[in-house]
């Protein structure tokens, strides 16, 4: 029998995969994709909790998360295009001029 806990464990796993991707990968595109994985893990939590408590609010938050993800992807990809034009690289280590 599938309980809420199964869904919470699954989304925790997906979130950990996304976080590991952000910390371990050195490619700006993969970094953005890992953020999308984390957003989707949280979405799964919201839908499962909304299902458990018989409320549609969970799905509405997912709707808003999707819009924010779309905005984030558009701005993030525009930043990547601008950065790539400067350095011809997607490695975040190429953009350390502002680093202390």
């Amino acid at each position, binding site marked *: *029998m*599938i*309980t*809420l*806990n*199964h869904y919470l*464990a*699954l989304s*925790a*796993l*997906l979130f950990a*995969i*996304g*976080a*590991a*991707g952000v*910390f*371990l*990968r*050195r*490619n700006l*595109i*993969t970094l*953005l*994709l890992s953020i*999308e*994985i984390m957003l*989707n893990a949280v*979405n*799964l939590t919201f*839908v*499962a909790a*909304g*299902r*458990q408590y*018989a*409320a*549609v*609010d969970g*799905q*509405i938050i997912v*709707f*808003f998360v*999707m*819009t924010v*993800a*779309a*905005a*984030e*992807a*558009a*701005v993030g*990809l*525009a930043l*990547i*295009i*601008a950065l*790539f034009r400067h350095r011809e690289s*997607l*490695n975040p280590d190429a953009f350390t001029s502002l680093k202390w």
Partner: protein
Amino acid sequence: MGLETVLFYVFGALAIVTSLMVVGQRNPVHSVLLLIASFGALAGLYVLLDAPFTAVTQIIVYAGAIMVLFLFVVMLLNVGREDAAEYDRSHPFNRPLERRAGTALVIALVVELAWAVWHVSVRQEGALRDVAPGSVASVAEIGRVLYRDYAFAFEATSVLILVAMVGAIILARPRPQSH
């Protein structure tokens, strides 16, 4: 084992495996395509959770629109495979110890999540509650709540999208050759 249980494990395994492959890929085009597969598996889970509207939105908006945007940018930049030598040189695992703060954070997060999952699995909850048909799954109910209770947030989202659109155009615009 009912059909629902089997489908949960199939979709869950598919989501985890494809997400792992997204993080492990060196070719960004493959990463993006695998992430679309992962989103498809999540849409299947949403159907199991009586959320067909969210499942369809996931496919159309996420897998359709956002991922195509990613794919478009990857192909526009024409980056191809990541160079293995540069990957190894710049990888955090090959750095001096004092620069590995991110690795410590990953370990802390994994320990924390494992602890939480273990505690959750020890506590036995009942099965997912049965809801009246048409209460959670109904698109009409979602629309009613969205446009009545969350009307302000909905309108604010449109401003956010507008700002993101203008910002993306300004950021990606070619710089005038002044210097």
